[in-house]
């Protein structure tokens, strides 16, 4: 009895391996490229990423065993996350098919970000780094990094875009609760930051500056740099979402016809949707972005910088340009100018479809979801739900089984409804 329970609630639902989509792509994945003649940003990765992460970044291994120590932390922070049939939403939408959602908001930091943060922090600890560092905008990634570091007794140094630092004081509280050292960026902890502050002491900060500071800090302090999204390793770590979903659906005797997820850098989407690819060629998949960041419809599929600062290599992706300045939309996590190379490739190839939704559709979706299912979901995740609702309106009688990835809760974003 005891064994059965363990196997169904933990070992058997949390996969034993991460899944890497690279070997299953329909075309070769264009590799990262250096953009400067005299300097290799690819080589820089060697100095700032844990070796294992770098290995996973470029690996062709379809399955990478999740180390026991990481598995244990996954259990601690609330994995497996629930997969719930949204019966009330079905009723509300008068839909004849089934709607399921996977709820990453149930993790300790309230979003999927912790899935890769734990992995990266673990590998940093394994190679005796002094700590980990990263940049954060809205704070979701910072919180995940802070907790992951804390779980492995590592220090964490977080560079938070100054304007967010001032506008989102609660996120800072969360990171501090996790014992993280959070500073507004530009900061005077790095040479780069000091230079910018000297020019403009009131500089509001950008993610690009934050990345530059974090990378400099990592190099100077034997810290490791933590990658929030876009890069393949992050998507691979996120594959626990999709693999759990597959098992949970199977055990319920179901399989989805259509998948929905939102896309910032592509990590929750890839982690959720990719594991379904080898399972079925027929499954329909929608990647949803914000109307204001139309990377798939208006962006170009080209080599472009991952970060505005140009510290990291260029990758081939759908991009609105590294210097694209998105409007200050409510869903901070979707403001990124590009999308993970593997996801971009699959969209370009036609295997995955893209969708865009407007702010009002998203707000409605969040309200409907709250009213029917109770969970107050993240604005980012609201895009996936809005897309699904749109789909249902156009496929009312298809009786398809829908599965939506709800990447996080929105409890720290409530002010958008004030």
């Amino acid at each position: 009895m005891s064994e059965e329970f363990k196997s169904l609630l933990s070992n058997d639902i949390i996969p034993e391996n991460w899944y890497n989509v690279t070997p299953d792509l329909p075309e070769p994945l264009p590799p990262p490229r250096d953009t400067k003649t005299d300097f290799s940003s690819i080589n820089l990765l060697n100095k700032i990423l844990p070796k294992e992460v770098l290995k996973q970044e470029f690996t062709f291994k379809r399955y990478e065993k999740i180390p026991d120590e990481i598995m244990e932390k996954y259990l601690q922070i609330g994995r497996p996350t629930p997969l719930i049939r949204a019966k009330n939403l079905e009723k509300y939408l008068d839909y004849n098919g089934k709607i399921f959602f996977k709820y990453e908001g149930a993790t300790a930091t309230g979003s999927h970000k912790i899935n890769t943060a734990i992995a990266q922090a673990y590998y940093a600890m394994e190679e005796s780094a002094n700590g980990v560092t990263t940049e954060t905008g809205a704070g979701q990634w910072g919180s995940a990094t802070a907790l992951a570091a804390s779980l492995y007794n590592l220090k964490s140094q977080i560079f938070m875009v100054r304007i967010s630092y001032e506008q989102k004081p609660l996120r800072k509280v969360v990171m501090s609760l996790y014992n993280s050292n959070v500073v507004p960026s530009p900061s005077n902890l790095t040479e780069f930051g000091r230079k910018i502050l000297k020019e403009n002491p009131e500089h509001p900060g950008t993610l690009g500056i934050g990345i530059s500071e974090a990378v400099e800090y990592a190099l100077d302090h034997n810290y490791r740099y933590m990658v929030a999204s876009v890069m393949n390793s992050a998507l691979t770590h996120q594959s626990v979402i999709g693999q759990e979903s597959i098992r949970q659906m199977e055990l319920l005797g179901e399989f989805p016809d259509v998948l929905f997820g939102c896309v910032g850098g592509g990590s929750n989407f890839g982690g959720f949707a990719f594991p379904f690819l080898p399972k079925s060629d027929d499954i329909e998949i929608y990647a949803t972005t914000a109307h204001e960041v139309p990377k798939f419809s208006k962006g170009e599929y080209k080599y472009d910088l991952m970060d505005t600062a140009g510290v990291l290599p260029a990758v081939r992706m759908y991009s609105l340009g590294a210097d694209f300045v998105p409007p200050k939309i409510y869903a901070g996590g979707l403001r990124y100018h590009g999308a993970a190379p593997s996801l971009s490739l699959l969209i370009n190839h036609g295997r995955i479809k893209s969708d865009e939704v407007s702010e009002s559709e998203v707000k409605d979706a969040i309200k409907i979801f709250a009213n029917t299912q109770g969970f107050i979901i993240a604005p980012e995740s609201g895009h996936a739900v809005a897309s699904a609702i749109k789909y249902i309106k156009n496929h009312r009688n298809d009786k398809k089984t829908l599965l939506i990835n709800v990447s996080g809760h929105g409890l720290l974003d409530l002010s958008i409804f004030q």
Partner: protein
Amino acid sequence: MPMKNLIPYFTLGYPNNETLKRFLMAMPLDIINYIEFGFPSNDPRYDGPTIRKTHRIGNENYNENFYFDIFKHFSDNNIKMYSLSYYSDIDDIERFAAILSNLGFSGSIIPDLLIDYYDEAFDVIETLNDMHFEYIPFFTPSTPDNVIKKVSEKTFSWIYYGLQPSTGIDIPYDLDYTCSRIFSLVKSREINFGFGIKTIDDVSELARRGASGVAIGSYLVNMLDKNDVNGFIDYLKMIRGALDVEA
């Protein structure tokens, strides 16, 4: 068991035509099998910093006429030659293959073909096949399984397997897995390995795991820079030895 392949790589024109000629002509013909020549590109984008540098300088120095005799020397001695050419530099694939054939080349490695021109790749391969000009599939760890399978089926030459996603950089990887993967995807085919191979150890490890041979490029640059012909010859002999021990 056939002799394992040693395949030195040079970018034409680097560090200058004369120095390169000295190195090439000094090579004992009995220890090398194939030779790979990089035709200098303006955008060698899947190469690492070291090789990128050789393209930049090679581009300034390269002079086709200078190499006619050298190419003849190797082809006369049955050392098969292959070009490393970027598809982005090729205007007309038939003319390209015809010229190289004339120069005595057996085939080409085209690193950007599958990545940046996947839609055209199979037409290109068919054209080269029709011309009996060897298209050497260039695969890396990140080439998807089905691409490796499909391309292998359509080609007949040996396969170039890059151990790194890009030349000259050192991303950690799992050698056992890397080897067993390619051997399980492509059975009974000559597979030569390249990218980041330097030491006797590297070579022994590969040979032991069944590699048909190794291509060495970035690591030679330092000797070219120092004009160290003797060191270069000693190094090649050492590698040859390592390959033979395992064979």
